[in-house]
């Protein structure tokens, strides 16, 4: 069985981990797995790769879409030729894929980010969000849930002042973090649900007088954040195990390709050592709840 993994961007360290998990899964199933992808995170490049994969007659394509609609025609073409299509991390249009493996419930991600922030700033104050690119589907979904959570009465003393975009670029994220601290003098906290954003912001904060005073949380990898958790810049942040995400996606794709499942709600399949999963609404499978990382457990992880 030939299964290909198509990340948003080929050398993005997070995606590399996910796809490693995916290829592991396929190898466990005695198939051939590979990772191909664009070096620019653009939807149009992904379309070229999808078409190549169709020509190469892959059994399944596992993709993190840069744009939900731009990749849809190519994915539909793939499905019409009998190729199983699974999305992960960033979904495509639901009718252009059979299964979407979500790393965690989008709602849960958004809401838990706000909960962590509220805990860290003592329940009141001004906060800002440092996001990635303005168009990223997953970012916007999470941010919408964050805003919704903030409407709850227990957060009435917390004010979301601004959403800034770091474009998943170190320098830009750095400058945006600076900008936030400059333009909002009484800023108490920043939520950065992007690994590039949170590490750039942490880097800036830890060498500035704001260290420890302005709280930073978000989604980051333990390896990137370890230093900042130990030096007190960051108290707690969250993520999930990207390797497991890929692993689950790989098993889902294999199950689809071999006809075990067809993407209908309620179907079950076993994802190797992760156990049994049931397909939910609109073909979505959730990996599990996000993991919180702090001083106590950060050394237990290596990714």
């Amino acid at each position, binding site marked *: 069985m030939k299964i290909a993994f198509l990340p948003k961007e*080929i050398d993005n360290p997070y995606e590399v981990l996910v796809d490693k998990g995916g290829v592991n899964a396929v190898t466990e199933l005695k198939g051939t797995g*590979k990772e*191909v*992808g*664009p*070096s*620019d995170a*653009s*939807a*149009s490049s992904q*379309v*070229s*790769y999808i*078409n*190549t994969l*169709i*020509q*190469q*007659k892959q059994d399944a394509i596992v993709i993190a879409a840069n*744009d*939900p*609609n*731009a990749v*849809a*025609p190519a994915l539909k073409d793939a499905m019409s030729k009998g190729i199983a299509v699974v999305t992960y991390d960033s979904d495509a*249009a639901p009718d252009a894929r059979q299964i979407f493996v979500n790393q965690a419930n989008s709602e849960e991600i958004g809401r838990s980010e706000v909960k962590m922030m509220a805990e860290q700033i003592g329940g009141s104050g001004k906060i800002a969000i440092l996001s990635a*690119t*303005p*168009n990223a589907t997953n970012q*916007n979904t999470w941010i919408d849930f964050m805003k919704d959570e903030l409407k709850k009465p227990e957060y009435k003393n917390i004010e979301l002042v601004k959403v800034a*975009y770091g474009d998943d670029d170190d320098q830009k994220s750095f400058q945006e973090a600076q900008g936030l601290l400059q333009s909002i003098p009484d800023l108490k906290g920043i939520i950065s649900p992007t690994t590039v954003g949170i590490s750039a912001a942490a880097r800036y904060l830890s060498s500035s007088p704001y260290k420890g005073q302005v709280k930073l949380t978000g989604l980051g990898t333990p390896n990137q954040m370890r230093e900042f958790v130990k030096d007190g810049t960051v108290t707690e942040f969250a993520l999930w195990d990207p390797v497991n995400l890929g692993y689950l996606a790989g098993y889902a794709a294999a199950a689809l390709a071999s006809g075990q499942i067809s993407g209908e709600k309620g179907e079950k399949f076993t994802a190797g050592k992760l156990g049994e999963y049931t397909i939910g609404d609109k073909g979505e499978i959730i990996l599990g709840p996000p993991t919180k990382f702090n001083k106590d457990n950060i050394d237990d992880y290596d990714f």
Partner: protein
Amino acid sequence: MLGRLLRWESVLIVLCVAVFVAGSASDGFAEQGNISFLLLDYSEVALLAFALLPIVLTGEIDLSVASTLGFCSALTGTLWDAGMSFETIVPIVILAGILLGAVNAVLVVLFGLPSLAVTIGTLGLYRGLAYVLLGDRAVTGFPENYRPLATDAIPGTFLPYATILVLVVGALIAVLVHVTTIGRSLYAIGLGAQTARFSGIRVNRIKFSLYLLSGGLAAIASLIYTLRYNSARADNANGMELVAVAAVLLGGVSIFGGRGTVLGVATALLAMAGLRNVLFLDDVSNEIQNVITGLLLILSVLVPVVFKPRRTKDVPLEPSVVDTERRTGADTGSRLRRDHQGV
């Protein structure tokens, strides 16, 4: 000069053939679906490259073409989202592209600013305006009756409709550049704008129009792009200008102006598209593809020098097409200006 031109075009044709021969050895290359995809993949780049060719021939450049495409795509999305009919959107977007080209034209031709610097500025400005229009939205749901024009091939063949458009544009540019008087004057301008002016060529008017043309073609490319991907975003075609410039340079067009053919650019586009397709099929990583593109670019300027080591570059020793018109005096000044940039 014609002799030397043909030398590089021949290399290109050989390269093209080699790519396609090697390609047929790869699984899945020689199928209709793949060939039509290969052609489609480069349709917008081809339009941009054809738009750039006349401009580069006159010794100028336009790096803002991809940002114009992005802006027009964003404009298409905004208007579509607001409920305007697609038939009305098309002429408006093309007009917008021409206007953006006009801004470049005014700055380069009327203000006399260097085109490299200006178009780096408009590259940023137009892309920024695209974000102002669409922000973080992506508009989709473009009309089902028009989309196949951008995505499909003529039923039963490998030829996409979009490629027909590209071929038509290519043919028109070829006529403009190689057949008309204006085309010949492009070469004259590239070889020496002052002299050309003294010969009666309306240099400013021509350069101005070329930028308008470039904007219009970028707008047309944006329509194809938006329909093909069914997605209007502010970052559409981000970075495509470098690919288009690479195609033009690879096609044997001199960056100084005064030399180059449509055939060269067309062959370069075909070679690049084919190469990309073959490398993808063989799972050659993106990195290697980048390296190959870069090496080809360097070779494209190195090879002519290696073949004719003693001749100083860009000075036509054989009677050129330009000599058919009267030249006032020996225009040594501009010849020297163009020679060996910086050395």
